[in-house]
C-alpha cells in the first residue's frame, strides 16, 4: 500500500496514521500534543496537512493513511496556519528561553525554529505565579501551552489522577486536584508529567541551573531501588562528576515511567558522608588506612580464623543492592577461597 506525501510515493502499513508514515519517511510534520506514548489528541493543530479531496486542513496525527491519498505538508496555507498557531502560543505565554530550564529540550522552541519564527514579544513580568511548593517539581503556567500531555500522563499512564484541566477556553489551566498547590495535593511526585511536558511548564526543581541539555552526557542504567528494575537515563555533568537529573527510558519493563525514588533520589552518591577510605578499628576507634593495609590485615585475620576454627566459622552476606558481579565475587570468595557454603544475601529481609 502506498500514499503520496509531497509528491513522493511512500509505503504504509494498515493502522498507521499519516503522521506515522511521514515520520517513518523523514518528512517533517511538527507536533506538540502528540507523543508516542500519548497518541493522537488533535489539540495543538500543528500537524495539519492538506489532503486532496477533503475540506480544510486535517490533523495528520489522527487521519489514517489510505491507499492512493495525496498529502501535502508544505503548502503556503499549511505553513501560514502552523506559524499562526505557534505565534499565538508564544504571544500568550512567557517564553523566555534564556532563563528556561527546558532550553534545548523544548518542543515549542524546536517547532518555532523550524517554522522560521524570529520575533515574538517576551513580556517582562509573567502573568501567573509559578507553583514551586512541592519538593521535586516546579509548575510554571506561563510556559504551559495546554497541550494536555501531562493530564494524560498523570491520569492515564500512571493512574495517579492528580492533574486536571480547570476552567475552559483561553482560561484553561492545569491544576492539581481542586487547584491546590502541588505540595498540598495528592501528588506523589512520580514526575511522569515533567517527562512528557513538551515545554518548560513542568520541570525538575533540583536540576535547575545545573546544566543545559546539550552539556549533559546521557548514560543508560537501571534504577537502584525496588525489584522492578526500571530503565533510566542518567543526565551527567562529567566535569562536576555529578548526576544532574534522571529520566525514564521508554523500554521494558517501565516504558519511561518512574517513581519518586527512581527519578529524584540520586544525590546519595555525591554525599559528603560517603566512606572514601578503608577503615580499621584500632583501640576501639575507626582510623583511615591505605588499601594495602586494610586488605593485608583482613587477609591475615581471615587466615588465622580459618586455621584456628575452620572454614565454617565464616559467614558471608552478599548485598542484594549491589551488582550481580559483586554477588558472584562474594559467592566465589566464600566457596573457592575460604571453602564454606555459609554465603547468603539479604533476600530474607
Amino acid at each position, binding site marked *: 500500500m502506498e500514499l503520496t506525501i509531497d509528491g513522493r510515493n511512500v509505503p504504509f502499513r494498515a493502522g498507521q496514521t499519516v503522521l506515522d508514515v511521514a515520520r517513518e519517511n523523514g518528512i517533517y510534520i511538527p507536533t506538540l500534543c502528540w507523543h508516542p506514548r500519548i497518541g493522537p489528541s488533535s489539540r495543538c493543530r500543528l500537524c495539519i496537512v492538506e489532503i486532496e479531496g477533503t475540506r480544510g486542513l486535517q490533523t495528520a496525527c489522527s487521519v489514517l493513511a489510505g491507499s492512493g491519498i495525496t498529502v501535502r505538508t508544505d503548502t503556503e496555507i499549511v505553513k501560514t496556519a502552523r506559524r499562526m498557531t505557534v505565534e499565538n502560543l508564544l504571544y500568550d505565554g512567557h517564553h523566555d528561553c534564556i532563563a528556561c530550564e527546558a532550553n534545548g529540550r523544548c518542543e515549542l522552541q524546536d517547532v518555532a525554529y523550524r517554522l522560521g519564527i524570529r520575533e515574538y514579544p517576551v513580556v517582562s513580568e509573567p502573568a501567573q505565579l509559578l507553583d514551586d511548593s512541592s519538593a*521535586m517539581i516546579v509548575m510554571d503556567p506561563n510556559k504551559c501551552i495546554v497541550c494536555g500531555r501531562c493530564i494524560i500522563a498523570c491520569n492515564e499512564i500512571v*493512574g*495517579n489522577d492528580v492533574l486536571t484541566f480547570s476552567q475552559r477556553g483561553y482560561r484553561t489551566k492545569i491544576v492539581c486536584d481542586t487547584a491546590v498547590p502541588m*505540595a498540598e495535593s495528592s*501528588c506523589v511526585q512520580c514526575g511522569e508529567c515533567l517527562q512528557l511536558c513538551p515545554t518548560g511548564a513542568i520541570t525538575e*526543581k533540583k536540576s535547575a541551573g545545573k546544566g543545559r541539555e546539550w552539556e549533559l*552526557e546521557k*548514560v543508560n542504567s*537501571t534504577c537502584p531501588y525496588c*525489584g*522492578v*528494575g526500571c*530503565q533510566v537515563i*542518567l543526565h551527567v555533568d562529567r566535569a562536576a562528576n*555529578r*548526576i544532574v537529573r534522571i529520566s525514564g527510558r521508554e523500554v*521494558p*519493563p*517501565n*516504558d519511561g515511567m518512574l517513581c*519518586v*525514588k527512581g527519578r529524584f533520589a540520586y544525590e546519595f552518591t555525591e554525599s559528603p558522608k560517603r*566512606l572514601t577510605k*578503608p*577503615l580499621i*578499628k584500632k583501640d576501639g576507634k*575507626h582510623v583511615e588506612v591505605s*588499601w594495602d593495609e586494610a*586488605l593485608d590485615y583482613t587477609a591475615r*585475620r581471615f587466615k588465622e*580464623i580459618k586455621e584456628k576454627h575452620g*572454614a*565454617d*566459622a*565464616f*559467614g*558471608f*552476606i*552478599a*548485598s*542484594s543492592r*549491589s551488582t*550481580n558481579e559483586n*554477588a*558472584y565475587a*562474594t*559467592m*566465589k*570468595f566464600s*566457596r*573457592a*577461597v575460604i571453602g564454606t*557454603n*555459609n*554465603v*547468603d*544475601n*539479604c533476600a*530474607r*529481609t
Partner: protein
Amino acid sequence: MTNSIQELEYAKLLFVIGSNTTEAHPVISYYIKRAVRNGATMIVNDPRRIDLCQWASHYVQINPGSDVAYINGLMREIIANEWHDKVYVEKFTEGFEELRKTVEGYTLERTSEITGVSVETIREVARILHEIHPASVVYTLGITEHICGVDNVRSLANLQMLLGNMGFYAGGLNPLRGQNNVQGSCDMGALPNVFCGYQRVDDSNARRKFEKAWNVTGLSPKPGITMTEMFADALHGSVKALLIAGENVIQTEPHMAHTIRCMEACEFIVLSEIFYNETAPYADVIFPDRAWGEEDGTFSNTERRMQRVRAAVKPQGDARSHWWIMNELGKRMGVDMKFETSNDVWEEMRSLSPGFNGITRERIETIGLQWPCPTTSHPGTPFLHVGGSFTRGKGLFAAIEYSPPAETPDSDYPFWLSTGRRLWHYHTGTQTHNSLGMDDLFGEELIEISPVDAARLGIKTGDWVRASSRRGTITLRAWVIDRSPEGLCWTSFHFAKACANELTIDAFDPISKTAEYKVCAIHLEKAADGEPLGSTLVPRRQARP
C-alpha cells in the same frame, strides 16, 4: 515472577495479596491500575486498607497471618463446586487428593472465623476465581515475611495450579521482589545451598565443574547456613568472622537488641559499605565500596530480566568495586580469582550457568533479557511453565494446614504490629535520606493507628506515642488513619530513630529463615501531646476515594 511485569496491564483478573503495590512497587502499580481501567477485575486481600484498594473491585480484609486458612477456604469452595480446572489438574499436577482432604477441614464457617472474612465474601471471591481466567496472583512480603511464609507461597501455588492458571500469558504466580538485585544475588548463588544458576552444592557434578573452572579442590558439599543462622551462631560462638557487603543489618534485622548482641559477640566483622551506617560501629574493617552510579555491571529484576547498570560518575575518594576487593583478598589468601574488569566476572559466571549462558553484555546493551536464556540465539523467557510444564515434571500440590503467628495480641500487648515500606524511603534510608528533598516529603517515622483505637486511647495525629513489644520500645508520632483496621498498628524501619525492628520478633520460617516482620504484638500508649503534622510532614496519600 513466573510472568512479566508488562503482562499485568493485560490481566483479566488480578488477585493481589500482601502487596502494598502503590508504595513498594509504584511502577508495577501503574500497570495494575491500567489493567483495572482496561476492565480487569481486581481483588485486593490485605489486613490494611492500602491505597490500591481504591482501584479494587473487591477489597477483602483478612486477619494478619491468616493467609493459609483463607486460601484453603477458597480452594475448598472451588473444589466443592467443581470449579477447579480438572483437565489441568489431571494432566499437569499430582497430589490433588491429599490437597482435597486437607482443605476439606476449612469450611466456610471455620475459614471465616480464622480470617475475619465473611462467608459471603469467601463464596464471592471463589466464584470470581472460577469465572475469570487466567488470574494473575501478585504478592510481596506480606506473604513471605511470616513464620509460615513458605506455606503461604505454596498455598498460592496450590490455588493457581488448581485453577489452571500457571503457564499462561497474564496469569501465573508473581512475587514482586523488594530489592533491586535480590533476584540477582540469588541467581549468582549467594545462597547457602546453590552455586550460580541454582546448581546445587550437594551435586558432585556441579562441584567438579566449579572446582575445575576455579582451579581449586575440595569444594564443600555441605549446604551452608543462612544469614539469620550466621548471627545466631556468632552469638553462640561457632561463627567467628562475618563479611557483610552492603546491608545495614542492625536496622534491617528483626529484634534489634538481639542483632546487636550477635554483632558484639562476633570476633571479626568486615563491612563493604558506602556509608558509615548503624552497623558500622561493630565492624573491625570497613572497605569503602563503589555506589550505584559509580559501578559497572548488571542487575536482575523481579521478572528475571538481566539489565545493565553503568558507571556514570567517578567514584568518591578511594572507593573500589566489591569484586575488586574480593579479588585482592583472594590473591592475599592464595587464590587468584583473575578478575580484572566487571565483565570478566560476568563472562566467568555466564560460562558456568547454563540458564544465563545466552545473556552476553552485548545482547543486553539496550534492553535486558529474561532468563532462562541458554544460548546466544535464545530470545529469553517472558513467562515460565508454558502450557503447564514444570521444572520437576508435574506440579506438586502441597497439603498445608494453617498455623497461627508466633506472637498474637494478649492483655499485656493488645495490638497487632505490622511493618513494611513507605513510598518515600528505601530500607534503612542510607540512599534516600542522603538524597535532597526526600526527607521533606517524609521526614520522620510515624505509627499508623486506626481511628477507633486512637479515639479510645485519646491519641490524635501528631501526638507522641510509646510503642513497646517484649523486645523493645520506640517513641514516635501517631498518624491516625483508616488504612489501619481496629487493633492493628503499622510502621516502617526507614528511620534509625524510631525503627520498627526494635519491636519485631525474631521468629523465623523454618525453611526460608525469613523473619515474621509482618506480625507481632505490641502495647501502645500516649506519651505526650504533639503538634499537628506541619505542612511538609502531612502524610500524603492518593486522593482517590
